[in-house]
Structure formats: structure tokens, C-alpha cells
């Protein structure tokens, strides 16, 4: 008799769930023991019971599951606006020309080997990544107060940083914006931090709930960690203005709140790398400390190569070096050392000024195409006289638009128009083209007028 029950995972926090989980663990042990007593005398033979038979199937990832559903749909007009991966006007994935060039250069360099990288990754990669996000003239870099370690894209950088904080920081709570990328809470929870939220998005205005943000951060215990999206907030596309960033900075520094930046879209928001790093640089300029997780998945199109970096800005150089040594202790039992291929491509591009320029041009082209899709969708809805204010489509920033459509409307659009998006109403603008905008506009129009 093997009871089916939910995995004793740590994601639910209610006390009832905790008691249930404790009970469940006792049941698991008891049933294992009784099976052991019956089955495992040397003469009874092996009955082939697995110790993992109680494991139940996990639900599909809500974001990646959208693509799974899309792939199953036979409709010729289907549209995938789920995962945030850039697509061309032809709806194809894009490998940047400058990336192909770098790849070829690496391939042709016969002296290259595939040896283990150091635990912290490629030193040049780390230096160049820090320069990219903090600025070449950053005082923190000049003063050797930054430690940067290569990690597995944004996810990996967040996880390594969070594990370090769970071990070495006096506050184990991180505040994340409401809403945020679906994977954020899991990353921090598994790292050993407890997760709270701060108000961020206002559904009525489809903009920022700035008052709520200030109140929630203002009432957070001193020293708490605060997750900030450096630019192009995912999923809402709503970013603070520079003035609002300054207010956030002052509030956080006055309460000694520790900033943990997630920078997954540098260059994608405005089309300009330095502009998109302003929020981070503002914090670094005041001499204080912060964590930054950087990803090259989108802005260099390196998605599956898993290239990213975690930087910790400290107040003193010797502190930065101690922090780095402890980061190594987090990394070694997780994956030993990071993958070489993608980071080598990044180094090749960033250290060559011609290739760097080529990259900024291709990056701007991607950002511009997305901005043009925003305009086209907005115009299309206006032309149809779709009820409601759709100006947020052109106000929001980055790869995603938080449409404001509810889950019933989303379901309707999937069913009747074969539009695939996450149920929170988020669409990836990168998945649109001039050809498909009219179809999406029709679908939104229908959803809004026929379903509320």
C-alpha cells in the first residue's frame, strides 16, 4: 500500500501545509520501514520496490509549458507569444552575426582546448562583464571592490548569490516585486532564503504602484534583501523613472536594505547598454554594496549556452576577495566550474572594439524591432476601436507586454485564435511580426468585446 501524496516541498508556507508535510514524512518513513521488514530478509528475494515510488508528477512549468502546448497545435495561424526568446520578422530564432563570427574564430583557433575553467570562470569574461554593467570608469572597479564570478546565465547567478546570502548574511529574507518572473521565488527558496513581496504593479493603471512600493520597502526590516529588476521588468514591462529610482535608492540606503539586481535585458530596454544600466550605476555611485546577476541569454542571443555573471560590489577590496573565496565554496559543490563555450564567445566579442560595435548595432536592431511591434499593435487596436486604454502597450519597456487581459480572455484567445501566451496576460513582443500583428489585434479585440 503506497499512499499518493504531494512532495514535501518547501514552497507552501501555511502552517496547515507544514503540519501536513510533517505528517506525510512520517507516513513515508513508516511505509518504507514496513516494506523493509517484510521484503528484505536475505531469503525473501528482491521485490523491486523503488524508494521513490511515492514521487508524484510535478506540474508543467507555466512558462515553458506554453511552448509545449503551442507545438501540439496544428493550426497554420498559431502564434507563440510565451517564452521570452527573440524572433525575427520571419518568426525564426536569431543567432547574431557577430556571434557566428566569434564562433568561427574560436573554431579556427587550433590552440584552444576544452580544459576545466577555474571555479569562478574565465577571468577576462568576469572583468569585461563587470565593465559592461558597471561602466568602464566605475569607481568600484577601479578600487577593486567588485568580485565577479561566471555563472549559468541569470538563473545561475541569482542562485549562487542567494546561496551565499543564506550562508553569510544576517538577514535571510528577500523582498521580490509583485509580480515577478515565475522562477524567482523558487530560486531564492531553494537557496535557503525566505521570500516576501513588495507592491510593484498597479493593474488599474497598468503602471507602477510607486506609493505601495515605497510603503512596503519602508516597512521592511533593516538589512533585508530587495530584488530589483534593473530594466525591462519581467513580466510587466513597467520600469521606475530615473527620479523614482533615486527615491528607491535613498529609501533603501537609509534602511540599509541590500539591493540584488537582476539584469537580464541590458540593451533590450532602450536599445542602449549604458542607459539600461543606469539604475545599477546609481546605486554603485553612492559607494554602497549590492549584488548583480547578469545574463547574456537575450542581449547576445546566447540562451542555451547559459552565460551569465554574478557581481558583488563591496565596500573594500579585501572584502571583495574574501567574498570571492566563499562564492567558490558555493559553486564547487553545485557544478564545479562553469561551461566554457558561451563565455568564450562573449569574451571574443567584448574585447574587440569592432565586434563590440557590431554587437551594439545588432542589439539595437532587435530592440527597435520590438518597439516597432509595440507601435503596430497599439495602432491596430486603435484602428479596430477596441474598447479600453491600450497606451500601456507603447509605454511598457522591454520584451514583454502585460496586456491586462485576464485568464478567461487568454483562454479564449488560445481556443479561438490559437494565440499562446502565459495565463497572466503577458505576451512576448519578440514573437510578433508585421504579418501577425493583425491576427493578434483581432484576437484581443474579440476577447475584450466578447469576454470580460
Amino acid at each position: 500500500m503506497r499512499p499518493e501524496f504531494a512532495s514535501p516541498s518547501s514552497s507552501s508556507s501555511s502552517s496547515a501545509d507544514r503540519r501536513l508535510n510533517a505528517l506525510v514524512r512520517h507516513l513515508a518513513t513508516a511505509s518504507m520501514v514496513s516494506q523493509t521488514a517484510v521484503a528484505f530478509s536475505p531469503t525473501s528475494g528482491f521485490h523491486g520496490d523503488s524508494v521513490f515510488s511515492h514521487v508524484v508528477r510535478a506540474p508543467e512549468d507555466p512558462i515553458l509549458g506554453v511552448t509545449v502546448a503551442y507545438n501540439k497545435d496544428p493550426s497554420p495561424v498559431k502564434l507563440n507569444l510565451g517564452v521570452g526568446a527573440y524572433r525575427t520578422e520571419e518568426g525564426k530564432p536569431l543567432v547574431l552575426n557577430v556571434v557566428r563570427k566569434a564562433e568561427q574564430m574560436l573554431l579556427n583557433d587550433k590552440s584552444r582546448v576544452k580544459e576545466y575553467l577555474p571555479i569562478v570562470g574565465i577571468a577576462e569574461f568576469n572583468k569585461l562583464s563587470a565593465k559592461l554593467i558597471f561602466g568602464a570608469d566605475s569607481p568600484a572597479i577601479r578600487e577593486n571592490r567588485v568580485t565577479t564570478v561566471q555563472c549559468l546565465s541569470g538563473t545561475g547567478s541569482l542562485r549562487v548569490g542567494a546561496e551565499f546570502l543564506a550562508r553569510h548574511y544576517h538577514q535571510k529574507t528577500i523582498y521580490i516585486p509583485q509580480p515577478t518572473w515565475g522562477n524567482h521565488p523558487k530560486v531564492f527558496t531553494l537557496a535557503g532564503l525566505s521570500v516576501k513581496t513588495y507592491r510593484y504593479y498597479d493593474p488599474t493603471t497598468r503602471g507602477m504602484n510607486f506609493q505601495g512600493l515605497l510603503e512596503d520597502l519602508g516597512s521592511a526590516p533593516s538589512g533585508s534583501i530587495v530584488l530589483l529588476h534593473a530594466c525591462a521588468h519581467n513580466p510587466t514591462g513597467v520600469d521606475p523613472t530615473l527620479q523614482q529610482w533615486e527615491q528607491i535608492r535613498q529609501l533603501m540606503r537609509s534602511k540599509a536594505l541590500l539591493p540584488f539586481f537582476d539584469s537580464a535585458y541590458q540593451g533590450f530596454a532602450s536599445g542602449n547598454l549604458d542607459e539600461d544600466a543606469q539604475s545599477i550605476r546609481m546605486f554603485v555611485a553612492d559607494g554602497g554594496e549590492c549584488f548583480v546577476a547578469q545574463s547574456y541569454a537575450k542581449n547576445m542571443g546566447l540562451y542555451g549556452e547559459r552565460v551569465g555573471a554574478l557581481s558583488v560590489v563591496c565596500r573594500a577590496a579585501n572584502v571583495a576577495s574574501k567574498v570571492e573565496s566563499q562564492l567558490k565554496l558555493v559553486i564547487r559543490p553545485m557544478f564545479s566550474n562553469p561551461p566554457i563555450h558561451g563565455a568564450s564567445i562573449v569574451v571574443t566579442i567584448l574585447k574587440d572594439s569592432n565586434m563590440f560595435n557590431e554587437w551594439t548595432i545588432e542589439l539595437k536592431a532587435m530592440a527597435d524591432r520590438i518597439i516597432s511591434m509595440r507601435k503596430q499593435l497599439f495602432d491596430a487596436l486603435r484602428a479596430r476601436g477596441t474598447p479600453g486604454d491600450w497606451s500601456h502597450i507603447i509605454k511598457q519597456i522591454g520584451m514583454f507586454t502585460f496586456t491586462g487581459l485576464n485568464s478567461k480572455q487568454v483562454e479564449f484567445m488560445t481556443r479561438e485564435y490559437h494565440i499562446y501566451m502565459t495565463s497572466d496576460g503577458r505576451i512576448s513582443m519578440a514573437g510578433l511580426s508585421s504579418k501577425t500583428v493583425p491576427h493578434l489585434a483581432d484576437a484581443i479585440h474579440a476577447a475584450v468585446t466578447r469576454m470580460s
Partner: protein
Amino acid sequence: MAIRRAMSGRIMDRTAVVGARYMSSWWRSVQPAPKDPILGVTEAFLADQSPDKVNVGVGAYRDDNGKPVVLECVREAERRIAGNLNMEYLPMGGSVKMVEETLKLAYGENSELIKEKRIAAVQALSGTGACRLFADFQKRFCPDSQIYIPVPTWANHHNIWRDAQVPQKTYHYYHPESKGLDFAAMIDDIKNAPNGSFFLLHACAHNPTGVDPSEEQWREISHHIKAKGHFAFFDMAYQGFASGDPEKDAKAIRIFLEDGHHIGIAQSYAKNMGLYGQRVGCLSVLCEDEKQAVAVKSQLQQLARPMYSNPPVHGAVIVSTILSDPDLKKQWLKEVKVMADRIIGMRTALRGNLEKLGSPLSWQHITNQIGMFCYSGLTPEQVDRLTNEFHIYMTRNGRISMAGVTTGNVKYLANAIHEVTK
């Protein structure tokens, strides 16, 4: 530019500066961490300026010129790949094709278990990542379990299960007096462990000792583990490197499968395909049936998602390109044998040189031991002398990476070892 100047003007605002000045570092109390005992060796080696320096520290293969090797089959695979693939995200479980081919290596080309879809498997970050995913999975779904780890073992094994918060115990393995296997004590430990314990086993080419159980001994180990209902988890980082034949090197695993165990396996392509820095590996868990395998795989993915979302694509595509092309696969098998044979040759040479020097000690274990490493029996003090006086780098447990030995340095190495042990 203008924005930045305006911002820095605002930064000079008194309140902002005062707030920042009174903040001390959060990390002042952070202690400098000790250097990694294995990877720290290479760091020290690289810093050494001596022309005689020898690195027999980390287990990365070197050719007879002491140079790292990129296999020809790997170069060919990369030529085919370059420019042809996009870099889209892999699924959370990694490359399906790569995983399929990898399971065949471990479970057998025509394994019924694979056909019956009973194996939950995901691409992992080389052997380390596979062990860590399993340890996290073990913690989550068997939270009261503990892991038994051999003495000695790869140092990072302890770190992995510790960070996964799984309590560890040890079992006897290496017998220092004979420089062989402490078989009786190992069996005792298996018998005395509480029923249903988890045991970490090195499938072949034990790291760091090079001491492997014989086939008969594996059968007995399997029998006693079965009798106690223990879970057998294999770390297979050297398939192909032990004997030169991957099928032979999987013998222990095949014995356990025949005996009906539901095992777990961590596989790595770091050494046997020379893909070290690409971080390519696989974690598999044999389940009762397809339904359970689907459930277990989904849960493994739930652990991978908050760690790195999905694994790196490049190395995985190299592996699947090679293993799914019969000619490339043949070439790979040839190249693995060349590497294994060179190491076996170096074992013979090192032992021969030491005996020729008239060393009073027995060096039989050098040729008895298997795989990349030789557990020399040198003490930490002797190792320090080797480093300080002879610029020879190895881990302080006396483990010599035979892959770092060449016809060019074997005499020098033998001399130095003789000097510190005579």
C-alpha cells in the same frame, strides 16, 4: 552623458552621502575560504616558474607531450555543428538525443530498461551537477535518509551532499596496508548500515585510490546491498578510462541491474570525451515503470529549474553528434583506448623506474590500481617536499594523476619520489 552628470550631481546630496558613509560592509565578518584542495593545486602549479615543474594534480588527461588533448572526433563534431545551429534554450531536462545515447553507454546498447522507458534521466552539469541534482532529489523525497560515502573519495563528494543537507556517513574502502580494497570491512559496513541507506559507489576507476572491486567482489557487494534494501548510487566519471573499453567499465552497473536494483547513475563526459569545461553529464534514476520515470524526471527538472533553468547546449550537441554517428562513435572508442593505454603504459614505466632505482618499498600498487589516479601512499609531508624541492604538484593525499606523467618526466618523477621515500 547628460543624465549621468545630472545624476552624480544629485549624488553629492548630503543625505545620500552621509547614509552611505555610515554603512560598513556587510561582509566584514566573512572569513576567507580555504583553497579547494584539488583545483588549488593547478593554481599553484601555474604560478610556479620552474622549467622542471610537473603537474600530476588534477585529473585532466595530457598527451605524452604533457599537452591537453581535444579528441579528433570532437573537432569533427564541432566542425559539423558550427554555424548550423541556433542557441535556443534546451528543455529543462536537457538534450533528449544526448540523454538517450548516454543511457545506452551505461545501461547497454539494447537495454530492455531503456525500451521500457523505466529510466528517469536528465542532462546535468557534468558529474558534479549530476551528483548534486541527485543529492537534492534525495533530500527532497527521502528526507530522513543518509548517504554512505567511501573512505577515501573525491573530496567534492562530501561538499555536494553537505550542501544538499543530506547527512553523511562513511564506509571502509581503501586498505592502506595492502594499498588495495578493505573488502571485509566494506561488507561489514554495508551490513551494519540501517536498512534502506543510500550508498555512493564509484562504478570504475575509483578516485582517488584507483582501487576497484573485482567482478566477484562486485557480485557480493550487490548481494549485501540488496539484502539490506539499500539504494545504490553510482558515480561513473571514468567509463572507458579504466580498461579502455566502456562496456567492460560498466560491468559493476550491469551486475546491479541484473540483480534487480533500482539504481541511480551520475555520468560525465569530462574525461572520456575530453569535454571538461563544457560541463556535460547525465543523471539517471531507474524506476519501477514508465509512469514513475515520468514523475521522477519531472521532479528532477523542478530541481534544475531554480538552479540553472536548463543545461548548456554546446557540449551536449557535441556528444549527441558523435554518439549517433556510427563512424564518429567508432573513432571515439579508438581515441578513448589510446588515452587509457597511454596511462597504463605510464604506470608500468613509473613502477619500473622506481624499482630500477632500488627503492626499498613495494610499488606494485602503481600497476595494480586502475584509471587515472595512483594512490601512491606518500604522506602529506612527502608531498610537500616533492612540491617545494622538486616542483612536483599533486594533492596532499598522495594522489598522482597518471595522465600528467609522460615519457619525458617519468624518470624525474621516479627520482623525486625515491628521494623523499628512501
